[in-house]
């Protein structure tokens, strides 16, 4: 019985040591479940987490939980109690895309939104010394005339950048050989050595590789996106249409909690995140890293996220079209 007594004693002392059960939220560290491998994008989430943690007086750690296109992170977060101590770093892929593709059984309406965090536009990049194509229409034209001759990488196959570029290429009837890489960072080397002809880059990777790549076109309809690529032209300026507008062709994340989280807790988290996202210093730090704060409030969640799914279907169809073209060659 001594063992039982020992456990009881330890339990008792530990309960006394711990703060009262009904104290003010938050009374311990919070976790942000981040769905990708560590890298530039995770650093952006960490910036927000740190600022928000200061606001709340606790530490918010960003926990990288990559796997299954973000689904693993969502599953992990959903297996935790709805007490506000676990935040979903809700990227488009696990939030909208994976459910659309039947890989997850939730919808974006199943979560309670905090604020939207950042967005980043994708862009088509070639080697810095590329002289075969003077602009994006020339590249697409070449790919239409010589289907499959060019090789390109959108990073991960089937992910958002792939959808966007496939849609653009489908609209111009352009076909190029797809070569997937786990992260677009890995593809830059093979772009430079001439193995790839173009890649779909994001602002974080562009910032690091500025000297070795040239941006032909930014895949966004938002004027501000051009700034994160040193003023490169938006795709619309060539009269090209990609069939997606606003946030749909972009990578973005919205911080979420489980929908059964107590209201008071949600209010505290929303207030802290709102303060942080509207803070100029935080905004500048994010912009420097290539990530544009979206400043969408919790109330705008439905209105912003709703239409994305519809527009992304076009991207999914474009990938199917591309596969068909490549298979026929």
């Amino acid at each position, binding site marked *: 019985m001594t063992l039982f007594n020992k456990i009881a004693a330890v339990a008792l002392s530990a309960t006394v040591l711990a703060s009262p059960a009904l104290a003010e939220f938050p009374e311990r560290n919070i976790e942000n479940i981040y769905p990708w491998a560590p890298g530039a994008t995770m650093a952006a989430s960490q910036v927000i987490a740190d600022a928000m943690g200061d606001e709340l007086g606790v530490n918010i750690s960003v*926990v*990288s939980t990559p*796997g299954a296109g973000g689904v693993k992170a969502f599953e992990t977060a959903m297996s935790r109690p709805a007490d506000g101590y676990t935040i979903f770093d809700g990227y488009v892929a696990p939030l909208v895309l994976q459910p659309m593709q039947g890989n997850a059984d939730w919808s974006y309406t199943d979560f309670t939104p905090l604020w939207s965090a950042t967005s980043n536009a994708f862009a088509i990049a070639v080697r810095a010394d590329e002289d075969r194509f003077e602009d994006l229409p020339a590249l697409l034209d070449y790919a239409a005339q010589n289907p499959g001759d060019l*090789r390109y990488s959108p990073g*991960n196959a089937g992910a958002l950048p792939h959808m966007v570029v496939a849609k653009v290429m489908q609209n111009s009837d352009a076909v190029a050989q797809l070569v997937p890489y*786990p992260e677009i960072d890995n593809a830059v080397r093979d772009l430079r050595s001439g*193995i790839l002809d173009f890649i779909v880059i994001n602002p974080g990777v562009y910032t690091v590789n500025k000297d070795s790549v040239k941006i032909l076109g930014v895949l966004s309809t938002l004027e501000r996106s051009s700034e994160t690529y040193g003023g490169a032209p938006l795709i619309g300026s060539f009269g090209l249409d990609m069939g997606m507008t606003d946030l749909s062709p972009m990578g973005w994340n919205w911080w979420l909690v489980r929908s059964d989280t107590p209201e008071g807790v949600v209010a505290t988290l929303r207030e802290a995140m709102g303060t942080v996202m509207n803070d100029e210093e935080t905004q500048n730090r994010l912009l420097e890293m290539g990530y544009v704060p979206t400043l969408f409030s919790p109330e705008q969640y439905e209105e912003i996220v709703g239409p994305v799914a519809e527009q992304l279907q076009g991207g999914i169809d474009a990938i199917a079209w591309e596969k068909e073209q490549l298979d026929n060659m």
Partner: protein
Amino acid sequence: MLDLLIQGAPLFFTWQAVLLTAAGIVAGLFIGVLPGLGPLMGIVLMLPVAFHLPPIPAMGMLIAIYVGGSAGGSISAILLRIPGTPLAAATLFDGYPMAQKGRSQDAIGLSIIASSLGGLLAGCVLLFFSPLLAAFALRFGPPEYAAMALFGLLTIAIVSEGSTIKGMVTGAFGLAIATMGTDEFTNAYRFTFGNFNLTSGPHIVPVVVGLFALSEVFVQIEGGDLTASPKIQRLRVSFRALRLILAHKVNLVRSAMIGTFMGAIPGAGGDVSAFVSYAVARRLAGPDEGYGEGAEGGVVATEAANNGCCGGALIPSLSLGIPGDASTAVLLAALFLLGFFPGPELFQYNADIAGGIFIAYLIGNIVLLIAGIVLVPFFGSVLKLPKAWLLPAVILLSTMGTYALQNSVFDLWVMLVFGAVGYLLRRANYPLAPIIIGMILGPVLENNLRRSLLISRDGLQIFIDRPISATILGMTGVLLAYVVITLIRGAPKAAKDEESSD
């Protein structure tokens, strides 16, 4: 080369990085001293901690543990005739007789100084060759990386202790584990058995911790003597060895270079290099030097070589992303986790990180010299620490370290399963290191193979058309032929097995 150091300096010379590097050396030395726990175990236990630190302090600490751990094993070899790590197995040939003659103080001093200087010499080679190799590797495309991964895997399977076949089996096992998770090309789930925790495959940290740390705890408990503490001679701080080493200059440089060279070949490893340089030193020495009966040169040769090996092993690891041994494989995993890709890109875009790692390595070896001599009296006390204290601490550190990585209890079960697998493999005399190398090189091999085929217009032809990949594959072919021939003959390798099994 120097510009790498200049770029890395601001990252390294922060109180956090310097302190953690120094702490890493001390921790490494103690871990190395303790029989059974080598540098690999130290790195494994601290890997999850490193993940929560900025990159250079993290890598500095891990590399310092690598360096300190490689040196520490000699102390128990000298004092107890038990090598703290396999790396120090050759050190006891002359180190223990020296101690028997009452010269344990000198033997330890010499081994520490030889380790430190050997490591520094290797550091110079590392500093010179890695950027060159990295610049060359800029021309590598998917076919070259696939060929390189194949080559690395095969050498590791061949050189690792135990039989070649068993090395190949565990290497293939590592490759198989690496295929678990989400396929990069189709996004299909492979071997996840419907469990979402497996959608990114088993994490390398629980696998490494289970295979090496947990199984070791079990083996140690089976070994008995849990509360015993050995009798150790009293040791004092002495700088006398600094003078003694001067008589062994040539031996030191030669052994360090042998170590560096062996380290740079994927798979060769510190224990092999220590034996080789010992054999060379012994052959070149006159009979009057008394090798095997307490010759100073024997200690210098083995220790300079096994620490030189660390620097050597870092060369292919950092510049190609192909690990030189199991410890560097885990170091590579750490670099991945911190968000950096080892290989030419590291030197191109993260030159400050590469430079910071080099500085950490060099400074680590300097700290080793000082700490190794100053802390000598403490090593004796650490050796007296009974296993009943040590093993539970290893269990808890393994568990919480693994948990902290992804805050996942599932990972702890993965760790446990691999602990059991590691135990069985140890008992059946299978080498464990190829599993880790296989896990790291598996995705490199598969994905670059498939990428090459996508790029190629005529299938596998692309591997022959490109001169570099053709050369690497040629070397792989020669190795494979060697394996097959020795297998059919059966004799030479079996002889080596008997040697290493006692």
